[in-house]
Each structure stands twice: as structure tokens, then as C-alpha cells.
């Protein structure tokens, strides 16, 4: 049955209110089971041996001593994970990233793994594995890696996107270019031109729950995997491919997930755990330590960016040009391309060009991190906009409003915008009391904008109605932050029943069709759409059953407020039939009542935000403190406003951490020097004020309720908002994030 995804304005009963989440009690009492909380009979403990070198040939791995240790049940190396990727370069990179194949490519790269009866034995076994390395030259900085004299990490990488194909391999995996208009003509029209270069350091998603899984593979090729993941269906497909298993024979169950932010969209330890289990024929539990998470999971890119903007005296931006250099770790990535797509997305710039370089370095393979690649581009562009505004003699907000992208404008990556919320967000910022609040000594205020695409994708959802009229909603998108509540509300809204009558479950891969990851802010958009459609299917069945019970044509049955109504003059005397009444008779009217939907959710609405930040800079120490922060963002329609606000606040806080403190620090030796929360400092409670939020609701025309994704955009503006605030507090423009105390102090000293 075809369903329309078009937005229809309606009065909501349930959606837009604030219910208690269904998994709340489990999570406040310690009952909720996360990745590391599962057990299985006879389970072994898995541990991974990792390279201490950033780049080294692996000459020999001698496991004989370790194998002989009492209690060791299996040891695996790359020999136990033969390449079955059939020329799929992306999959081959995942395989090589999971376990080094002849060469260690970064500090922390997995080299071997053991499964043993307990933790102590597993650790001892690792110490007995002798690996003979031949150290190779390494490079960890993005600009240095682009230098023609740099060590070339992969001899088979020739820059994509360059014609003719380069004759020599290099660390530049790809060059991307996009834009429109004529930038030379645009700059020649400009009365003012500003140019600035920026750097941002590598940060980690910093989810509090380390990667963890429990794998069990049988000799007949069947298996199960319990894992903390943002997408168990995708994990199943990838793991089955890497292990040579049949997709349907590997059942993957997503545990409760202790944060992901993009970092749990990639497999690392899971294929190793499966390989260990297959070899030992015992379940294997593998939990990463925090140090392993930092050294060997997927942080985001460090970058180096040049921006050039030109404008007329009236503030009209005539041309924008940006070059973005993003490192993707030890394998080719597409991160600079995302930077190109997002850099100018908030503005309608007639003449614009973005060029991106994806660069390979000896660091862990980069993974998505909340609106991946956009925060760095926004840091560069939104900082430069302030410099331009100063030159023109306009306020930063008026310059932005003058050039803001509206419906009908062309996005940097091609499409024409539909209804979007950046102008409304900027106006809300301009009118916000925060903008009028007095600043104290050493304080400054900054604003910045942000954009993220949001995505849809493959989704599959079931609704099953119990004999008492309660409803099971079966979802396949992992609940990372309260989506079971939102989805239950949507089902209740459609069916016309109380929220409490719906119970949402996340199905394992054996119980529901494929669902894409919870990524790209797609969960509420996509699963929400599939829930609406599945509920409408179920209502169709309920109406048929009511018609049968009454003995009237189904065309004469309507569904209102959770009950079937007989419509038409001839049926006036029939009392309504409630969902419960129809369900209780379902065994005699055709069997179980269900609704189902599978869909490629299309038409995700773009997310736009504008942030206001006040900082106070301690000129003695260079420390910047956030004294007030406001997030304004378009949600399309906020299903559960508490959790929308939570996304705004959490994303802003991650951006603040990136702006002020968080960075990967590599030594000259190419080793990560701060793989722990003590030295990689994420914001703590005492670092922050309350984060004020304002939800705008500009409906997405391509969702029945108008929903847009809300998860990611909020991390995009903070780097620039903080940098702009520091500039206003001190008169010094910071161009290198994080703007940590030593960097700010150095900049203050240089300026005085």
C-alpha cells in the first residue's frame, strides 16, 4: 500500500508533549543492559594486542609461548581473517583496520588477539606474543602528509578527482571541488576581501561506554553477536562479509548503547571477537579499555582550512572560496567532501567554490562524529564572516541576515533549498534577550550558524496489537537517546490511544527487516515515518475487523480517537468499537492484528541552527569560561521537546569541548600522548552554565508530521561561536582550535 510522506498540518494530542521514557526505570536502577553487561555460559575474555608504532612492517608474530599458557583458548591474527572482500576497497579497508595485515598503520592498530578463561590470563597471554617490527617513517599532520616529500603510506593510492590520474601515489586520497558562479568575477566586484587560514585538532566522540560485544559462533556457521552499536543490521552485514558467514545466520542484538555520536557506526573489535569465538568454539566477550577507544576507534579529522570572502559595502557577499584539508587517518576517507558541501550552506553566495583534500596519515581510521566535517568548516567560515563584518562596519548578525540562504537558494552541493530555518533562527537570535544582556569585564559575545543535511534511508517497522488492545511497536533503529519514547508517542498519536498503551522494542536482526544505522539524524525522521505508515496499515486492518463484527461494508467504517465508528445514516445506532474490543475478538475475525511498513525514507529536512555564546577570558591563564549559551534550531516538529532540547544542549556542549580543550596530541614518535579522560578533557558539570534552547518548528514538507532530524546540527556552530566570543572579549582572533589556555595565552602575548 502506498503512503504519502507529505506534511499535513494537524492538531496533535500526544506529539509535542513530554512523557516519561519507557526505558527510564531500567536506566536509573542499573537494570539496563549495555554492551559489557551480557554474559554467556562458558564465555571467554578477549583482549587485543596493539602496535606501539605509528608505522611499521610486521616481520613476524610468534604466538607459540602464548598458546601454551594454561587457560588460553584461541589466538587470532590476520591469518584467521582471510581477505574475502572480493575487490570491495571500502570493505578491505575495514578488514585491514580491524587487524593489521603485514603492516601497522597507526599507534594502536590491532596486531593479534587472544581469548582466555579470564582477564588475568588473557593479559598475560598478550605479553607472551612476540611481534617483530621494522619501524617505518610516519606522518601524523595533515599538511605535512600532503608535502610531496612525505612518506607515502599506501603505494596504491592515486588521488581521485584529478584529471589526468597522477603518475605517482600520494597521501592525498581524493580531491573534491564544488560550487557555482564565477568566483573571479565575484571577487572583482567586492569592495572588501578577507582571507584567513585555520587549523582544528582531532577530537573523539568521547562516548562514555567503550566498545563492547559478546560473540558466539558455532562450527556450522551460525552465530550471535550482542553489541553496543548504532546499527546492528549494518554490523551484521559487515561482520558476515568479513567472516565469510551467511547474513541470515548471524543474529545481531543491539544492547543499550552508552553513547555513539557516529563512533559506533563502524566495526572494530566485533570481527575479532567473532573470529576468536569461531576458533575457540566458545562465546567470547571483548570490551575495549578507554585507552584502546582513544588509540584505536575512530575519532574525527584534524583539519587545515583557508577561507576567502569578498563583499560589497552594503554587505552583499559577492564571492566565497574555501580550501579544506581533512585527514581521514590511515585509510582513504570522504571527509573533506562533506566539508565542501557544508562550508557555505547557511548562505546564498552567488559565486562560490569549495575544494577539499582527503588526506591519509598514520592515525586511527576516522569515523563519523556528529555532523561529521561540518564543525571545522563552520569554524573557518563563521570566524571569517566576523572579520568581514568588522571590515565592512556591520554587525555580524546583520551581515549573516543580509546573505542568509532562503527557500529557492542553491545549496553548495547543487540542490535548491525548500523551506529552511536559518533566517528564522538568525532573527530569533537577534531578538533574543541574551543578545541584549550586559557583558562584564573580560567577557565577550559571539554568534555562529550551522547546517547539517540530515538523512533518511532504509527503515522497517512492525506494529502488533495484543488481545487486550495494548500495542507492541517493533523498531530496528537503535535508540541512542530516547527514541523509543518518541516512536511510542507517534504510534499513540496515529492509533488515537494513550501513550502508555504502546510498548516499543528494538528488534534483533532475526526479527525484523533491515534498518540503516541511527546516524545522520535519521532515527526520528525515518522510524517515525515508518511508524506512522505501519500504524495506518494497522488501522486499515482494525477497520476491516470492525466492519466484519458489525456486518457492514468497510467503506462505512472510520477510525477516530482509538475507536471504530460506523458512518452513514443506516448505521447510526451502532455504538463505536474500541481498539480493545476489536482486539479481544481478533481470534474469531481473522487472527492477529498487525501493521507493517518498509520504506526508504526520502526527503529528510535540512537542519539549521544559530548559537549565541558569552565567554569570560582570564588573561592571566588564557582560560576561557562559558558564562551563557543559547541554542536556536529548527526541529521541523519536536515530537518530544525534552529530548530535542537534550540534543541541542548535548551537541552544543560537545562543540564547546572541542572549542576549548579537546584534542589528540601526538608526539614526535607518532604515538598518542593523551589516550584517557584525564588528559583528553571533555567538559564537566562545573565547566558549564545552563544551556538555553529555543526550538523553531518550520515543517519539513516531506514528513507527515513535518519532522526534521535534530541530532547533529547543534555541534556545528560552537567552535566559531566560542572563537567569535573570545575575539570580542580580547580583541584577539583565534585561528587554531581548541582554543585552549596555552594557545589563547600565546595569542594574547603575541598581540600585546
Amino acid at each position, binding site marked *: 500500500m502506498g503512503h504519502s510522506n507529505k506534511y499535513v498540518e494537524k492538531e496533535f494530542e500526544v506529539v509535542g508533549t*513530554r512523557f516519561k521514557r519507557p526505558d527510564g526505570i531500567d536506566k536509573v*536502577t542499573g537494570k539496563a543492559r549495555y554492551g559489557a553487561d551480557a554474559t554467556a555460559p562458558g564465555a571467554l575474555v578477549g583482549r587485543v594486542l596493539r602496535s606501539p608504532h605509528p608505522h611499521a612492517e610486521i616481520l613476524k608474530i610468534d604466538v607459540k609461548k602464548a598458546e601454551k599458557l594454561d587457560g588460553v583458548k584461541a589466538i587470532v591474527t590476520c591469518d584467521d581473517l582471510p581477505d574475502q572482500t572480493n575487490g570491495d576497497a571500502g570493505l578491505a579497508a575495514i578488514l585491514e583496520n580491524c587487524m593489521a595485515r603485514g603492516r601497522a598503520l597507526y599507534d594502536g592498530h590491532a596486531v593479534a588477539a587472544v581469548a582466555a578463561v579470564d582477564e*588475568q590470563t588473557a593479559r598475560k597471554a598478550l605479553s607472551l606474543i612476540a611481534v617483530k617490527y621494522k619501524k617505518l617513517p610516519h606522518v601524523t599532520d595533515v599538511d605535512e602528509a600532503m608535502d610531496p616529500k612525505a612518506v607515502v603510506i599506501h603505494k596504491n593510492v592515486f588521488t581521485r578527482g584529478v584529471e589526468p590520474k597522477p603518475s605517482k601515489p600520494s597521501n592525498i586520497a581524493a580531491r573534491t571541488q564544488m560550487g557555482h558562479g564565477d568566483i573571479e568575477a565575484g571577487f572583482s566586484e567586492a569592495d572588501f576581501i578577507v582571507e584567513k587560514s585555520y587549523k582544528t585538532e582531532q577530537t573523539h566522540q568521547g562516548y562514555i561506554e567503550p566498545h563492547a560485544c559478546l560473540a558466539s559462533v558455532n562450527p556450522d556457521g551460525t552465530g550471535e553477536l550482542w553489541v553496543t552499536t548504532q546499527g546492528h543490521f549494518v554490523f551484521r552485514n559487515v561482520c558476515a562479509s568479513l567472516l565469510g558467514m551467511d547474513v541470515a545466520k548471524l543474529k545481531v542484538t543491539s544492547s543499550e548503547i552508552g*553513547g555513539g555520536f557516529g563512533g559506533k557506526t563502524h566495526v572494530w573489535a566485533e570481527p575479532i571477537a567473532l573470529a576468536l569465538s569461531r576458533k575457540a568454539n566458545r562465546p567470547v566477550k571483548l570490551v575495549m579499555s578507554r585507552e584502546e577507544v582513544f588509540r584505536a576507534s575512530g575519532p574525527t579529522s584534524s583539519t587545515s582550512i583557508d577561507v576567502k570572502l569578498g563583499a560589497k559595502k552594503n554587505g552583499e557577499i559577492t564571492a566565497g572560496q574555501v580550501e579544506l584539508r581533512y585527514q581521514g587517518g590511515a585509510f582513504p576517507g570522504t571527509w573533506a567532501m562533506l566539508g565542501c558541501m557544508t562550508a557555505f550552506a547557511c548562505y546564498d553566495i552567488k559565486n562560490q567554490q569549495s575544494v577539499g583534500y582527503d588526506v591519509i596519515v598514520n592515525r586511527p581510521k576516522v569515523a563519523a562524529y556528529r555532523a561529521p566535517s561540518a564543525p571545522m568548516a563552520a569554524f573557518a567560515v563563521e570566524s571569517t564572516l566576523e572579520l568581514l563584518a568588522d571590515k565592512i562596519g556591520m554587525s555580524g548578525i546583520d551581515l549573516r541576515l543580509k546573505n542568509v540562504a532562503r527557500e529557492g537558494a542553491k545549496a553548495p552541493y547543487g540542490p535548491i533549498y525548500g523551506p529552511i530555518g536559518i533566517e528564522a533562527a538568525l532573527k530569533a537570535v537577534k531578538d533574543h534577550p541574551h543578545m541584549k544582556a550586559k557583558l562584564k569585564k573580560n567577557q565577550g559575545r559571539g554568534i555562529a550558524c550551522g547546517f547539517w543535511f540530515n538523512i533518511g534511508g532504509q527503515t522497517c517497522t512492525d506494529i502488533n496489537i495484543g488481545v487486550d488492545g495494548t500495542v507492541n511497536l517493533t523498531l530496528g533503529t537503535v535508540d541512542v537517546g530516547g527514541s523509543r519514547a518518541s516512536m511510542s508517542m507517534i504510534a499513540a498519536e496515529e492509533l488515537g490511544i494513550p501513550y502508555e498503551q504502546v510498548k516499543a522494542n528494538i528488534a534483533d536482526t532475526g526479527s525484523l527487516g533491515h534498518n540503516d544505522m541511527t546516524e545522520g539524524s535519521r532515527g526520528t525522521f525515518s522510524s517515525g515515518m515508518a511508524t506512522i505508515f505501519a500504524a495506518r496499515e494497522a488501522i486499515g486492518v482494525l477497520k476491516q475487523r470492525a466492519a466484519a463484527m458489525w456486518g457492514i461494508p468497510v467503506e462505512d467504517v472510520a477510525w477516530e480517537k482509538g475507536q471504530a465508528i460506523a458512518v452513514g445514516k443506516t448505521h447510526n445506532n451502532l455504538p463505536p468499537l474500541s481498539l480493545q474490543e476489536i482486539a479481544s475478538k481478533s481470534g474469531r475475525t481473522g487472527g492477529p492484528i498487525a501493521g507493517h511498513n518498509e520504506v526508504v525514507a526520502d526527503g529528510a529536512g535540512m537542519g539549521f541552527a544559530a548559537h549565541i555564546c558569552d565567554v569570560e577570558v582570564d588573561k592571566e591563564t588564557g582560560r576561557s569560561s562559558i558564562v551563557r549559551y543559547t541554542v536556536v534550531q529548527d526541529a521541523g516538529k519536536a515530537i518530544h521537546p525534552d529530548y530535542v532540547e537534550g540534543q541541542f544542549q548535548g551537541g552544543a556542549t560537545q562543540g564547546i569541548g572541542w572549542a576549548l580543550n579537546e584534542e589528540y596530541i601526538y608526539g614526535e614518535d607518532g604515538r598518542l600522548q593523551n589516550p584517557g579522560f584525564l588528559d583528553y578533557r571533555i567538559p564537566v558539570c562545573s565547566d558549564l552554565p545552563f544551556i538555553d534552547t529555543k526550538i523553531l518548528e518550520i515543517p519539513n514538507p516531506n514528513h507527515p508530521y513535518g519532522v526534521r532530524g535534530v541530532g547533529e546540527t547543534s555541534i556545528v556552530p560552537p567552535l566559531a561561536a566560542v572563537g567569535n566570543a573570545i575575539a570580542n572579549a580580547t580583541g584577539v582572533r583565534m585561528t587554531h582550535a581548541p582554543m585552549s589556555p596555552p594557545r589563547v595565552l600565546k595569542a594574547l602575548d603575541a598581540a600585546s
Partner: protein
Amino acid sequence: MSKSTLVSTRVNGDAVEFACPADETLMNSLRDRVGLTGVKEGCGTGDCGACSVTLDGRLVCSCLVLSVEADGKEVGTVEGLAEGDKLHPLQEKFIDHAALQCGICTPGFLVAADALLKKNANPSEEEIRYALAGNLCRCTGYDKIVRAVQAAAKDIRKAK
């Protein structure tokens, strides 16, 4: 296998005995031997607070305590906060205020907040923020957590 030591404690009021190697942390014993997986491991180095428990009433990171140090002591975990079927006011308010998203840090926050409110029934916002500075949350930006603790403190004061 390393040689084990017998540890006798009370956990959430119940007598508990287990044997473990001398170098095993209280966090691992509580999770793997006592079965209290509400005690979470976020870092194993005392930086994140997800494994917060009380030891004779004092707030500690159980990853920094050896199990043998808990011998003869009272251990309190998140599993001991509710009284029968009645949630602790902090637990109620964390749910009401949407103070959790992924929830992995929640047990540690609840134990730390309970330890604060037992010492200080009416903490200021700043006191709450400093008392919880040893607990990392990556989802919420702490806004709703602080509000939940304020609301719970108010409820507890009213009930007295």
C-alpha cells in the same frame, strides 16, 4: 589463575562474600562476581565516575578501589537506591526531567548526587556542579541533570 582472596562485605545492606584475585578492582568484582552491572566502566582510571559507589558512605570510584579493601565495609551501588518498588526521588526526577539520554553515566550520577544530598540537603547550583564534576556525561550538557538534582533535593526537603 591467580590465587584468590576471600572478601566479606555488605552490599546495599546484604551480606556478600566472594573470592577474587588480590589485584581485582571492586568495580570488576561488583560487576562480574556480585552481578551488579549497574556499576559501569567508562575509563577504569577514575576519570569518568561511571563506576561510582559508596564505601562506608564515602563516594569512591570503584575502579580505583581493590576489592580486598572493601572487606568488612559497606558498599552502596545504584541498585540499592530504590526502596522496594519506590524509586528514590533522584531516580524519579532524572526520569521526569529527561536527565538521561544514553543512560550509561546515570548510575554514577545518581550515586554521586545521593552522596551530595546526604551531606547537603539544599545545595546551590554551583555546589551541585562541583559535586558532580567527577562524573562525565557526554550526551546532555549536564543542564537537565542539574535541574533534576535541584528538583529531587526540593522533594526530599519537603518530605522531611
